[in-house]
């Protein structure tokens, strides 16, 4: 059943919460605030009762697929299960009712958590120092590019290019360009890894860094990673690691050990914090020694068992957001790290790799991709072979919805036609993987036998396929009474 908008449920006089009485008259208000400063018209907020409010959002919630209700193998997003204890603890009043400008003596407990989380991320990544400031992965990228920029400015080197493989995530080029760099695209070789020739040809003293994703977005570990790093380093560039895919590497290898100078983490991926319907995330950056001075303000430091915020860092790029990062997300990551411990993290990565390969193996014949062979934590297949039946990957994705499964990432990475990018995560059982595999095999059969079933999917969702063209042609971005 469709759910009316909250505005359509509004009637003057209804209220959803009781508030204390206030006895301030017009005149008194004007004594405080001259009337030309006052708002002239209504606020345009709805007036509904609490029961209707609750029913509205509860019903809306049921119109979502989510980790807690569905398999959600969205490639590159590491949609792993979000442990409930993390939610409980991160919501403790003494953790989440703290003002950023309270005296340091009154926030030592939470600073401990932030500090220790950084230290653990350093150990996992082989970086020398981690900052928790960035609010998400892309923010971490931007922060990092600004640091690299600052470093070269400091060294008086003019480098304004960044190398980015053609398989990279869109935030990589976007962040680079936001930081004032020009993007140079590096081709992938037929194995789906960085083409060393293309790299060598493009690497020079104008290049500030290469942005690498390891494993890359095809789910493949860059086997020539040491050569890549060598080529870049030898010309004075930095190796930046997009850590979105760290879920493949924990306890197996460290970016710091294979040449990364700087990287970001996605706590909302690898470290199990929920994705919140789009955020908040947290995108800490980690750096090797030489980039430490440029980390954003403030850093959290410890001196004789007391934690403090260090703003005395003259070379820092400054602040990248207000206050100290997405603290609540970090608390959840801390809880995750403590529950898993040193033993658990490697198991996470190993099982993520196992699951991805199981899916790959079972589906690669039916949805062949140009890049074959063993993958890491995710695999990229392709719906290209279905085009001859007039079915596109988009249709396959929509049809999966009818099976109660959230589709993989589609049409990314760009270098695979009709890509299906599948990241199952270690938190999903073999039974769930089998259900998914069977659904995709079943869909392949349907494409053969009755392709319109697939082309017209979904059939069981709260709305059928929505008209995106119409939505974009004449954008309606807010509700208005008479329309």
């Amino acid at each position, binding site marked *: 059943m469709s759910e009316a*908008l909250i505005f359509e449920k509004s009637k003057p006089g209804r209220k959803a919460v009781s508030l204390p009485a206030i006895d301030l008259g017009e005149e008194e208000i004007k004594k405080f605030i001259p009337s030309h400063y006052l708002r002239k018209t209504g606020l345009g907020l709805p007036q509904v009762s609490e029961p209707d409010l609750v029913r509205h959002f509860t019903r809306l919630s049921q119109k979502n697929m989510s980790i807690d209700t569905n398999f959600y193998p969205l490639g590159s997003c590491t949609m792993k299960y979000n442990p409930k204890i993390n939610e409980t603890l991160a919501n403790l009043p003494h953790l989440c009712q703290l003002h950023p400008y309270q005296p340091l003596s009154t926030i030592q407990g939470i600073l401990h958590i932030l500090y220790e989380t950084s230290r653990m991320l350093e150990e996992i990544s082989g970086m020398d120092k981690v900052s928790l400031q960035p609010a998400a992965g*892309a923010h971490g990228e931007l922060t990092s590019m600004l640091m690299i920029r600052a470093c070269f400015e400091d060294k008086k080197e003019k480098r304004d290019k960044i190398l980015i493989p053609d398989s990279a995530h869109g935030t990589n080029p976007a962040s680079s360009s*936001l930081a004032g760099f020009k993007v140079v695209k590096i081709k992938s070789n037929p194995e789906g890894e960085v083409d060393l020739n293309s790299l060598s040809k493009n690497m020079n003293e104008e290049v500030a860094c290469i942005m690498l994703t390891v494993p890359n977005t095809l789910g493949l570990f860059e086997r020539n990673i040491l050569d890549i790093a060598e080529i870049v380093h030898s010309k004075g560039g930095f190796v930046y690691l997009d850590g979105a895919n760290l879920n493949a590497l924990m306890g197996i290898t460290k970016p710091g050990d294979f040449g990364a100078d700087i990287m970001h983490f996605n706590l909302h991926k690898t470290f199990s914090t929920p994705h919140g319907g789009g955020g908040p995330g947290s995108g800490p950056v980690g750096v090797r020694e030489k980039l430490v001075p440029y980390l954003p303000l403030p850093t959290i430091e410890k001196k004789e068992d007391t934690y403090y915020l260090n703003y005395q860092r003259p070379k820092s790029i400054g602040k990248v957001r207000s206050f100290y990062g997405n603290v609540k997300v970090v608390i959840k990551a801390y809880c995750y790290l403590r529950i898993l411990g040193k033993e658990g993290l490697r198991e996470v990565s190993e099982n993520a790799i196992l699951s991805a390969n199981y899916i790959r193996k079972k589906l690669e014949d039916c949805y062949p991709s140009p890049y074959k062979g063993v993958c890491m934590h995710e695999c990229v297949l392709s719906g290209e072979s279905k085009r001859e039946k007039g079915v596109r990957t988009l249709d396959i994705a929509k049809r999966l919805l009818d099976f109660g499964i959230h589709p993989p990432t589609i049409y990314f990475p760009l270098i695979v036609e009709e890509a299906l990018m599948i990241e199952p995560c270690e938190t999903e059982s073999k039974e769930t993987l089998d259900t998914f595999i069977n659904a995709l095999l079943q869909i392949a059969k349907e494409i053969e036998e009755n392709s319109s079933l697939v082309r017209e999917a979904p059939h069981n*969702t709260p709305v059928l396929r929505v008209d995106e063209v119409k939505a974009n042609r004449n954008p309606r971005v807010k509700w208005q009474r008479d329309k």
Partner: protein
Amino acid sequence: MDIPYIPHTLKDQQQMLAEIGVKSIEELITVPEEIRLSSPLKLPSAISEMELTREVKKLSSQNASTEEYTSFPGGGIYDHFIPAVVEHLASRSELYTAYTPYQAEASQGTLQAIYEYQTLICNLFQMDVSNASMYDGASSLAEAALMAHRLRKGEKILVAKTLHPEYYQVLYTYTKPSGIKLIQIPYTSEGTCDLTWLEEKMDEKVTGVIIQNPNFFGYLEHNSEIEKIVHKFGSLYIVSSDPISLGLLSSPGEYNADIAVAEGQPLGSPSCLGGECLGIFTTRKEFLRKMPGRIVGETEDKEGKRGFVLILQTREQHIRREGATSNICTNQSLNALKACIYLSCIGEEGLKKIALLCLKNSHYLKEKIEGLPGYSSPFSAPFFKEFVIKTPISPEKINQKLLEAKILGGLDLGRFYPELKNHFLLCATEKRTEKELDKLISLLGEINE
């Protein structure tokens, strides 16, 4: 296999390995030998949920939270009342464990909620369009400056000195690569922007003017006068505002702002050390396609039923890549959801009431404190819920005393403004009771040297 988050049993693993055709997981790891770790990570050992709970509760008890302390700091993060429904509904796990609603048909819950959020924000700010959230107020403002720069290539942006200093710092970090010059607008003894200075400095090379209203000190800027000055030169008028204040005060739309941003934490998110932010971003309809961030639009499904979907994705990084209007991908969607629930709950009358309670409490407090020997009020402009007080001794010392009485005192302005040494910024929201206000007043009275 002792991890509750990994379902694979040994047998599952063996079956899967057999299907794949390898003998061990090891064989699946394509990481070159020479960079594989030879020893386990040096991390603490795994602990159980029970032990973790004990540990984190102990750590949490080392903080002084507003659960036990009375809070008077403001400066961008506020101790506002959050109705119980907000947490209850935002904890619906179908909402918080989903991701970006790329697949519209499987995400109508999130999409409709964001659409409602966009509408609520547009209405409250009286602006044409809102995006689906940025990281925080500061980065939202920085993105506004960059957008202004895309729209009006100029040389400089004039920025109120009464803008939150951390926002200024973020603005500086973000705009530096673009070469835009930031020039600060001084403030007067009213505690607001110096209009004479502004008028003098305005010219065609000014891309935009950035104002905070109520400003960082809590005072109301001369928004209409500023607007006239700014628009005279075709510059863009960019405003950062406190959404709670809009229950009472003139909105950015009313005073004709071109871009209005805000920190949305006061709308239903807890303070959390400043770690539960929400970047509100609104602008004019004609700038829609230049706007950063995600946008939800209304449409229909193939049977004509109303549905919602992400629109104008061609602005975004995953399509436009280096040419995108912003690099943002993961945003603060859950906080936008909380704001949506909060505003729907508080409603038309409620937000007015909240604003009036803030007004009343803060003015009561200010009047009483400036009457105390040794304390005075340096600025004369009207204010909303925050105000500046000159203190007889250093705010740090005062706050130390207050702490003993379980009170979190005001923000020491000397930290950001050398000229405002021995001044602090106090905030009184609707949550403060008369008793709490009186206690602060009487304690301050005792610490007058």
